[in-house]
């Protein structure tokens, strides 16, 4: 029983990792109606920026917020430079291809600049451990930061005029233009925010998995699954999805099929759930208008 409890706790800890990246995916989806494959690599690259700043002697929190700001600007720039040319065309697949291109570039450039050796990324939280070491200060801190980000994202999209305008721009660009929303800039802003949230996720994840250029490759798969399981447009769902995936994966590996197939079985279950609930556990069912 104790072992079971520990597996759940450890699953929650990894689930927190997935949840924080899933949030960034939800952010960009709500702002652009696309799933950004390069999100993980953007977060990784932001984390390297933070690492550079900290190594240059900057205090942690100063580096943290500066990185968030830089990543916001970076997201806007990426949108303006590489995504915008496709805005007016209905070229979803072309954009997906551009995402993959971005992913390759960021990954390769990070390896080129920083090399592939592991880097230790500091945590701002105390090193105390809880539940017999199952959770440590940093993991609790990660939960806290994810939760705060979640609230902010939720409030932003729900109540601020800007957030509403962004959602409108993503859902129905034509009508939004008619009511005076600057759709193009809304998309850029969405990219900026996704970049910023991704940076937060990266800086929270790096102390746990260590910083290297492939840090987010595996996490992205799980984050993607988490976001869709919870409902890609719903930030609460995405975070919950992250925790569910984390715990499910651990329990599968430990009790059901063994570690060699745990990923496979976890994925089968997720797809199974989606077949029963096609828009995710907490997503709104889309009604198609004829």
């Amino acid at each position, binding site marked *: 029983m104790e072992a079971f409890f520990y597996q759940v706790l450890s699953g929650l800890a990894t689930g927190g990792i997935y949840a924080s990246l899933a949030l960034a995916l939800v952010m960009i989806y709500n702002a652009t109606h696309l799933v950004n494959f390069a999100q993980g690599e953007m977060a990784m690259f932001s984390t390297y920026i933070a690492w550079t700043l900290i190594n240059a002697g900057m205090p942690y929190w100063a580096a943290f917020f500066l990185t968030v700001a830089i990543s916001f600007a970076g997201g806007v720039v990426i949108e303006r430079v590489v995504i915008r040319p496709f805005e007016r065309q209905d070229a979803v697949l072309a954009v997906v291809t551009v995402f993959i291109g971005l992913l390759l570039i960021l990954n390769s450039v990070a390896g080129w600049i920083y090399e592939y*050796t592991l880097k230790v990324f500091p945590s701002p939280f105390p090193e105390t451990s809880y539940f*017999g070491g199952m959770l440590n200060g940093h993991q609790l801190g990660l939960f806290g930061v994810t939760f705060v980000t979640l609230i902010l994202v939720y409030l932003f999209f729900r109540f601020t005029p800007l957030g509403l305008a962004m959602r409108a721009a993503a859902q129905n660009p034509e009508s939004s233009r008619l009511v005076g929303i600057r759709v193009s800039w809304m998309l850029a802003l969405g990219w900026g925010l996704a970049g910023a949230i991704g940076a937060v996720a990266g800086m929270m994840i790096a102390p746990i998995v260590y910083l290297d250029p492939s840090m987010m490759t595996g996490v992205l798969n799980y984050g993607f699954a988490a976001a869709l399981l919870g409902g890609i447009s719903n930030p609460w769902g995405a975070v919950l999805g992250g925790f569910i995936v984390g715990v499910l994966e651990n329990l599968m590996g430990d009790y059901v099929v063994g*570690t060699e197939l745990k990923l496979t079985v976890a994925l089968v279950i997720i797809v199974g759930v989606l077949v029963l609930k096609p828009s995710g556990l907490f997503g709104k069912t889309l009604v198609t208008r004829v």
Partner: protein
Amino acid sequence: MTSLTFTKKLLFTSIASVLGLVLAVSGATAAKKYDPGASDTEIKIGHTNPYSGPASAYGSIGKAETAYFKMVNEQGGINGRKINFISLDDSYSPPKTVEQVRKLVEQEEVLFMFQPLGTPSNTAIHKYMNEKKVPQLFVATGATKWGDPKNFPWTMGWQPNYQTESKAYAAYILKNHPNAKIGILYQNDDYGKDYLFGFKEGLGDKASKMIVKEVSYEVSDPTVDSQIVTLKASGANLFFNVTTPKFAAQAIRKSVDIGWNPVHFLNSVSANINNVLVPAGLDKSKGIITSAYIKDPNDPQWVKNKDYQDWLAWMKKYNPDANLADGNYVYGYSVAYTMHQVLKACGDELTRENVMKQAASLKNLEVPMLLPGIKVTTGQNDYYPIESIQLARFDGKQFQLFGEIIGK
């Protein structure tokens, strides 16, 4: 069978001695013999390595080797010939390796392939190289299958194979911890399974009794925390850790964090202070037992060692931007040195057959940066160049070598 091999040997020696006589009589000038890729001015060497994709971390081996041959060229080459080292990217994808190796062999016409990296990649070209009779030398993988001169006379490994290493741990465990309950974490691929196989072989019929839990992970897993929790819960008091650097660091840290303090055996793949033990925490790494055949450049005990000083000077001159913590630069340096010696021994007879013959005639070659007492020896029936290792215990600062050198 034995009589047949004996006749073969006899035949071989007689041919060799006749050849030797002919060579001696005809004098040095007439002895020049070339296969594709060799000439009076250059020797072409082919190489594949992942410079892109998920295994890019190994790219530094290729960089180190490129740098080594650059140094050789600046010092006048080998017997007056420059080395043309052509290193291509295969992204650690076997189909891509096949394509690149065919490019090197058929289009670039290299004399031989040196150090293609990865077990699956080398398996993919294994047959091809042997059908084409092009040497596949000193492959960069520790799988056990590379030393099979009977069936694959054109393929040779270099480093101690994984099974040798895990058998050494098994022997040590049987002697010193006969009642241990063993938990194993391994990477779910050929490398992990090779270790696992050798380890079980080493434990013999005690394996099933002593091993209480085996868990695996995938390279794409973000963490191995869950596996460590499982191992702790299994009641194991001895941990055999078969992981690559990132996961090794995670495993070391997590096991200490959750209060699991088994006797910890770490595979030599991750026995690197700056890239594994520092990220895991030096205090948490104390007491870890591993094995080594090559010097860890971060280990303070080697700072004054001449090998290390030479290596450091070479790094500063030829890899000024590289990370000194990266053990791949040591590995690449040592294996390229071995190749260098083989080519020197080839003299003016730069045929594929002679390259293979010289590679199989190394006798107690001392290679810089190998541990004291560990030497390279090969033979017509011995395609395992390095077969010895030494156990080492990490004392919080450095690896303390202990016990005898194990193996030949």
